């Protein structure tokens, strides 16, 4: 409960900071929203319609009100009376209205989110599976060339920039050697789970290769540490199969740090993998953010920043709660 309250306070601070940062910046935010043939009057109307003429703090409280009870765009009652046809209702939780796209931020996020979520899920699946597997192998074969090879190779792959790996997979694996089809996002409803997975394989691999090294290291380190513990010797001594000792007892020690890492990495990915989505032209949250940034679409940027921040804060809370289940020694206060 205390964590949830701190989390909400953090989110409020995050949103206020974001507003101050963007609206006190001096960059003319209405220029893009107003369009090409912009007259001073038209600009003033736009400013009013978007609420940019109000002080930052008022805009912020309006935004918060929108999140809680929803709001109408444009907000101004005068403008609503003049041209009722453009009024858009944005139900709670309303994260704003993008003038550039003439859509609510919620609908833009709802369009892009499935892509980012699918990508994140497949990527997490890949790197956790291979990270833990390789980490275990490296720990069991400690000091041999297998161990050195696994640790070295994952570090080298990690050291190459993500966009280089992505472009390499795209240009060579998909186009030149044609080992996999050219990746295009296919929803499960359109192509079934198989199509969906195969098409996500390359971008997810790009992401997974970046995270793999960290998971191998953590798994290896904690398994190695626990392998020298007394309870492992006890388990072996009582005649438990080596495989069972490894998976049931040794791997257990790595579970807590792994859950922490998975939680936080997944949260940061759910906010959108900007580079990977751009390389593979997937229209997820990251690509949406990049487009919003180019057109200086502030409501979308703010919405995405807060969404991503909320994921991170939420993940922290979830990880803390999970601890208590994984490790009975940990108690929630």
């Amino acid at each position, binding site marked *: 409960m205390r964590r949830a309250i701190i989390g909400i306070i953090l989110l409020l601070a995050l949103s206020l900071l974001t507003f101050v940062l963007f609206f006190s910046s*001096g*960059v003319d935010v209405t220029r893009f929203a107003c369009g090409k043939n912009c007259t001073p009057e038209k600009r003033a109307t736009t400013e009013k319609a978007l609420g940019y003429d109000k002080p930052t703090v008022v805009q912020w409280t309006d935004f918060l009100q929108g999140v809680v009870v929803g709001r109408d765009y444009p907000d101004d009652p005068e403008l609503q009376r003049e041209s009722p046809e453009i009024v858009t209702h944005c139900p709670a939780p309303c994260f704003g209205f993008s003038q550039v796209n003439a859509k609510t931020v919620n609908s833009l996020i709802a369009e892009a989110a499935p892509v980012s979520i699918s990508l994140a899920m497949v990527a997490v699946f890949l790197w956790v599976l291979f990270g833990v597997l390789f980490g275990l192998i490296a720990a069991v074969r400690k000091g041999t060339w297998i161990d050195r090879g696994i640790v070295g190779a994952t570090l080298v792959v*990690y*050291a190459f*920039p993500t966009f280089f790996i992505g472009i390499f997979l795209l240009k060579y694996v998909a186009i030149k050697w044609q080992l996999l089809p050219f990746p295009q996002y296919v929803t499960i409803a359109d192509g079934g789970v198989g199509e969906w997975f195969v098409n996500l394989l390359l971008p997810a691999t790009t992401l997974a290769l970046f995270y793999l090294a960290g998971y191998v290291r953590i798994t290896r380190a904690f398994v*190695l540490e626990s392998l020298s513990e007394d309870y492992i010797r006890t388990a072996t001594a009582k005649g438990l199969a080596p495989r069972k000792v490894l998976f049931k007892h040794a791997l257990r020690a790595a579970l807590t740090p792994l859950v922490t890492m998975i939680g936080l990495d997944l949260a940061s990915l759910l*906010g959108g993998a900007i*580079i990977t989505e751009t390389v593979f032209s997937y229209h997820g949250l990251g690509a949406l*953010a990049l487009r919003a940034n180019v057109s200086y679409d502030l409501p979308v940027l703010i919405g995405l*920043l807060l969404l991503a921040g909320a994921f991170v804060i939420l993940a922290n809370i979830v990880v803390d709660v999970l601890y208590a289940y994984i490790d009975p020694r940990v108690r929630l206060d």
Partner: protein
Amino acid sequence: MTVTPANQLEERTPDPKGAGPTAITSNSPTALAFARFRKDKKSWVALVVVVVYISAGIAAPFLVMFGVLDPQTANQDLLNANTLPAGDFWGISWTHPLGVEPGVGRDVLSRIWLGITYSLAVSLAAAFIAVFVGVALGIIAGFAGGWTDAIIGRVIDLVLAFPQTLLLLAAAPVGLAILTEQLHVPDGALAQGMFVVLVLGLFGWTGTARLIRGQVLSLREREFVDAARLFGASRRRIWFKELLPNLWAPVLVTFTLYMPAFISAEAALAYLGVSVRPPTPTLGNVLKDSIQYASGDFLYFFAPAFMIALIVVSFNLLGDGLRDALDPKGDR
């Protein structure tokens, strides 16, 4: 003043060159750490690579000055009709050991070499900021405790909750405007570089702050701090004269590990167009230019990425080696 932890006292080993097992030398923890580091071949190789990169980075501007490296001249005559480098093996020659860029025709080696200078400069400056802020706040949080600690802890949470890349992207026009218009930094590579340095540094300090805070929490209970307090030492003196010298080991390790992180981050930012922009080369923006020719000119595509990977791996191995040498308990 350096304190010898009890566990390191037991580690005094007989001098291998000594007369026999009786010849026991008393080694300082620093000497012990150095001895451990010396045995670590991997770290030595990494150290050599890092030194070579740094020397190359320092030398590059002078080589450009004397005309040995030429990162800007467009050698259009070396390109074929498809604007790819003419000749076999991606147009390698004695004058252009890595060939020339497709399209423009600038010397690739010169651009990568000078790119090392700019990438290292940016990462180094950002690492200094991150370490400085992190150490200062870590010491304050750890020593002051109570409300100060709680506030710094929440600020760290806040910084960590910000999606960095997204914020960097969004803040780029604003940040550059503030730098050039209000702080009167000349527009161009310098302002862009300063923006990258500031954002990397000001977002990167949280890890150091947490680490240092933890160290300070255990150090502040030690006798020498009590002694200093009894002498009537000011708080600032205790923070920076008594505690800081005991923190150099973790500070050195984190500093070394910041470098590869920031070199990678610069490359990622260059891809998104918010790092230093061409014609000033950085490893990141050379790679960004080269990926357009990923299938047409493999050497040009691979060379900058390889140079990034090599230095990132080396700095990581060096950091790990230093940590193992300085903190033999933490075997991770």
